[in-house]
């Protein structure tokens, strides 16, 4: 593209003068900068061209003079006063004067722009930095002689390489910015940060430097955020500024603000990809997975060829518990733009979605000498939609060194996750209790077992509800198994995020422990105040109160009450190789209410045999208020190690250790300690 009409007008003259000034410019550069970028051969060629064009222009003027004089000779009677030289000179003078006028007008505008920049500079700093002083000296020198022709020559001579030489024509800001950009391009972020800061010292309202300075510190969101905010104030119509603010707020966990900024960006251009996806990413980071899925799907409905978004959709689908759909999304991405990284990710997700078999072996031992061994496995069918089905079974042996009991369990299970925020797990089946060899007359029995659990989490994890009902065999000791003690428990956990990183949780459990002879009820209330130090680290203060309706020590330890106060922590560590370590631990103190302090001889608590259990939290009639024993140490630990071996194959190790009444459903004595290990291997079928 050649703007203008080459050969005519002032363009030819401008470039001719430019070429003529080249030797002067090169000399200037050599003298002041020691740099000679342009090749002398090229310069010489341009000189020749300029000379040739000058000759052409002279010929043009001469021909024009001849032609017009000739025309006048025919039109006007008498002698022709004008000579050919008049036309030639007039043509050249007109072109030259026009060129001078145009160039000087531009130079004057540039000069005024620099004046404004310097005024801003003076306002910004009364003590100019070294960067700011140099242009002042240059500008002062430049103001000594500014007549028209020299201005043109100065323009030609001083149009130097910006990163290497100081130009009279550039403003201080422009030079500092050019220097910063040059450093930025070399890939030295620390030096670039200093350089852009220097630009802002000269021109605090320089939007480009503001953005770059912020952008170089994206990994420090708290530092970058005010800079991006300032950039938005300077460039309110640039939606990328809003997106950057949203990104920083999102990284700082301020999801609601981040969403508001994302919406502002969308208002500027609802069709802009980065604006649409920027909001989707904020939603995803805020764990508003369902909303993020809607946003990604809306974009893909109109842009189905966007491979990157298919990948992001896939990630969210995994979070939403839909690995089958996630596989389809990744396959779509691969079809559009094959990428080895995505291929590896696809293999992993296929492993999650595929049918799998998980054999497990578990062992536990407690301080009363009870040992449990369990061998079993689970088979899960492939994930196709929101529901997933499977079957699980195990054989357990419970022994105490004297006697032993065996249990066989088989159950169907299903997981249904219609929304990312709602998940329902259900298991139903039976446990066959083998007859005890040591107990004469003992017979086998089949007990129905099952579990149903619904978990709902509000967007951004503000509110969470976990409801659970389950029925199972209490297999803490051979005696409990022999008595066919069953536990039916209902529990609810309500979690509410308070201001900032604080979360309050309330837990309530009500369990019925029954065998063929008696029924007991256990009630537990807990309050937890948790603070999320990091997304992967939580600290908490916990208070638990446990109460049994019927205090007893026969078979399992059921004191009238237990109080536990502890400090807890939960953290997750994930390595680059996706090895995950999760730890949930608590340590504190507990005390147990002395049982049977003043029970009536009939075995009934004072207050009447038909009166039922006393109200929760109140000691039974006749029991002393000081029946709580001394505070003793409490401890619990749960650790999970998940090691992916290959796509679809993962080894998992779980450790559980308890010295706390809170952590178990049925301790067998008051001084109970417990430890268990579970090892499993998930093996997906290709």
């Amino acid at each position, binding site marked *: *593209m*050649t*703007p*203008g*009409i*080459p*050969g005519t*007008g*002032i*363009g*030819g003259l*401008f*470039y001719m003068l*430019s*070429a003529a000034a080249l030797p002067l*410019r090169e000399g200037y550069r050599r003298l002041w900068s020691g740099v000679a970028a*342009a090749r002398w051969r*090229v*310069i010489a060629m*341009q000189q020749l*061209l300029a000379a040739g*064009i000058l*000759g*052409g222009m002279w010929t*043009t003027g001469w*021909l024009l003079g001849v*032609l*017009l004089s000739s*025309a*006048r000779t*025919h039109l006007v009677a008498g002698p022709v006063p004008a000579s050919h030289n008049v036309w030639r000179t007039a043509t050249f003078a007109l072109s030259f004067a*026009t*060129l001078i006028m145009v*160039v000087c*007008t531009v*130079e004057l*505008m540039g000069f005024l722009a620099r004046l404004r920049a310097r005024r801003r500079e003076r306002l910004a700093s009364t003590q100019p930095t070294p960067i700011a002083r140099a242009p002042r000296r240059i500008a002062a020198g430049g103001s000594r002689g500014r007549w028209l022709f020299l201005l043109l020559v100065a323009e*030609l001579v*001083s*149009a*130097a390489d*910006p*990163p290497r030489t100081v130009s009279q024509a550039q403003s201080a800001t422009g030079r500092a910015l*050019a220097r910063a950009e040059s450093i*930025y*391009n*070399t*890939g030295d*972020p620390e030096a670039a940060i200093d350089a852009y800061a220097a630009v802002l010292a000269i021109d605090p309202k320089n939007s*480009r430097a503001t953005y770059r300075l912020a*952008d170089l510190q994206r990994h420090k969101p708290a530092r970058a955020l005010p800079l991006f905010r300032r950039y938005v104030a300077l*460039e309110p119509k*640039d939606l*990328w*500024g809003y*997106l950057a603010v949203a990104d920083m707020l999102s990284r700082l966990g301020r999801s609601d603000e981040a969403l508001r900024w994302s919406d502002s960006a969308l208002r500027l251009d609802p069709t802009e990809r980065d604006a649409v996806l920027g909001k989707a990413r904020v939603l995803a980071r805020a764990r508003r997975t369902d909303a993020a899925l809607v946003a990604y799907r809306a974009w893909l409905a109109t842009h189905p*060829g*966007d491979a990157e978004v298919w990948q992001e959709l896939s990630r969210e689908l995994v979070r939403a518990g839909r690995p089958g759909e996630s596989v389809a999304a990744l396959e779509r991405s691969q079809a*559009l*733009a094959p990428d080895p990284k995505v291929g590896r990710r696809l293999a992993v997700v296929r492993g999650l979605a595929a049918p799998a078999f998980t054999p497990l072996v578990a062992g536990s031992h407690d301080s009363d000498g009870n040992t449990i061994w369990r061998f079993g496995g689970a088979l899960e069918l492939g994930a196709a939609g929101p529901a997933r089905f499977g079957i699980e079974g195990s054989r357990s042996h419970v022994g105490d060194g004297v006697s032993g009991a065996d249990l066989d369990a088989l159950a169907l299970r299903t997981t249904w996750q219609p929304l990312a925020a709602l998940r329902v797990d259900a298991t139903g089946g039976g446990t066959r209790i083998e007859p005890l060899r040591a107990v004469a007359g003992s017979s086998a029995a089949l007990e129905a077992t099952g579990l149903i659990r619904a978990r709902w989490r509000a967007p951004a994890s503000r509110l969470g509800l976990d409801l659970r009902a389950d029925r199972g065999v209490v297999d803490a000791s051979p005696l409990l198994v022999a008595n066919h003690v069953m536990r039916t428990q209902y529990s609810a956990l309500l979690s509410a995020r308070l201001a900032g990183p604080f979360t309050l949780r309330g837990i309530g459990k009500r369990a019925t422990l029954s065998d063929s002879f008696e029924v007991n009820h256990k009630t537990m209330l807990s309050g937890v105040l948790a603070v999320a130090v990091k997304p992967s680290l939580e600290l908490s203060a916990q208070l638990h109160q446990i109460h049994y309706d019927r205090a007893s020590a026969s078979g399992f330890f059921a004191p009238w009450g237990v109080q536990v106060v502890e400090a807890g922590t939960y953290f997750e560590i994930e390595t680059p190789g996706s090895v995950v370590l999760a730890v949930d631990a608590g340590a504190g103190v507990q005390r147990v209410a002395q049982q049977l302090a003043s029970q009536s001889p009939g075995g009934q608590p004072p207050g009447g045999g038909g009166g039922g259990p006393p109200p929760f939290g109140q000691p039974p009639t006749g029991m002393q208020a000081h029946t709580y024993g001394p505070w003793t140490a409490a401890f619990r630990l749960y650790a999970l190690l998940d090691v992916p071996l290959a796509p679809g194959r993962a080894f998992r190790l779980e450790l559980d250790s308890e010295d706390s009444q809170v952590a178990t459903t049925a301790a067998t004595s008051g001084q109970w300690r417990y430890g268990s290990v579970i090892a499993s291997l998930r093996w997906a079928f290709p």
Partner: protein
Amino acid sequence: MAVRALQPKIERPLHRPLSGCDVTVIVPAYNEAESIASTIESLQSQTSPPREIIVVDDCSSDGTGNVARALGVTVIRPPTNTGSKAGAQTFALRHVHTALTVAVDADTVLQTDALERLLPAFEKPGVAAACGFVLPQRVQTLWERGRYVEYLFAFTYYKQVQECYGRPLISSGCFSMYRTAQLRVHGGWSNRTMAEDMDLTWSLYQGGNEVRFVPEAVCYPIEPRTFKLMGQQLRRWSHGFIQNVRLHWRGLLSVPYLRSAVAVAFWDATIAAALYLVLLPILAIVLRTPWVLLGYVIDAPAVLVPVIVGAVKRGEIGRALASIPAFFVLRTVNAIYFLRAAAAEFVLGRTLRVYEKGH
């Protein structure tokens, strides 16, 4: 100035000599089945072949994508037509994973060493773009010949001088190499004007970057063969130039030499064009002599000098001399289109927004 980048990456310093491995070529294509094979083959036969060639099949209906796919290059297709070359190129930018990106039109073939010739320009960190010498692939019709002379003149004379001052006016859209990080900083190629190459070049200058012209790197685009096609291209270019002047004039004031070059080009495209088209006929009428109309070609000696020099280097002096008359026709048509564009943009306020393919 707006920075169009959500997460621009910081490029690693390159300590080894740049090679084709550092280059991804983007070829935007809309119904280019006839010409794209030559373009791809010329890219594949480069002395420094690019790491990847990405053809953006902008929803063509003539099988452009299949032709490209058959030649073993990456073909991507946006869900809907992007509406402009800039849109297609920017669509492909997200697929680029190399330090350098080359944009080549689907009707342009490169000299076998063109990429290799451009690479050294990027050894200097501040260089964000580099372009080469452009010559028409076919020189047969009046319009192709006119364009041939125009290119010989501009690339032998104007652009060489601009390069000596470190300020090539435009990094040509038909063949240019860019530093990918800078492209991302600027959000790729913008479609806010009809001349995305000029827009990007001027944006790069204002960002403190350098642009280089490497005359040894030669490319050969197909130029419009007919008046209709030439008219569409000139309309787009003339509007694009004026739109860019309106968009960038304030920022260009801080870029030495370029500001003057743009001002001079703007004068020649508007005022001088008006004088050229109006003054000579008026003079002919006032003076009552048709000889004045010779003024339309009277600067031929000045034009001939760089054209002949450029043609001699390529051994094409006969073709150049034979094409000179076509240049004056094209120049006149060019002036008309620039005046129309100036009137539409400045007087009537009718900004051209629809991108029409020029050939």
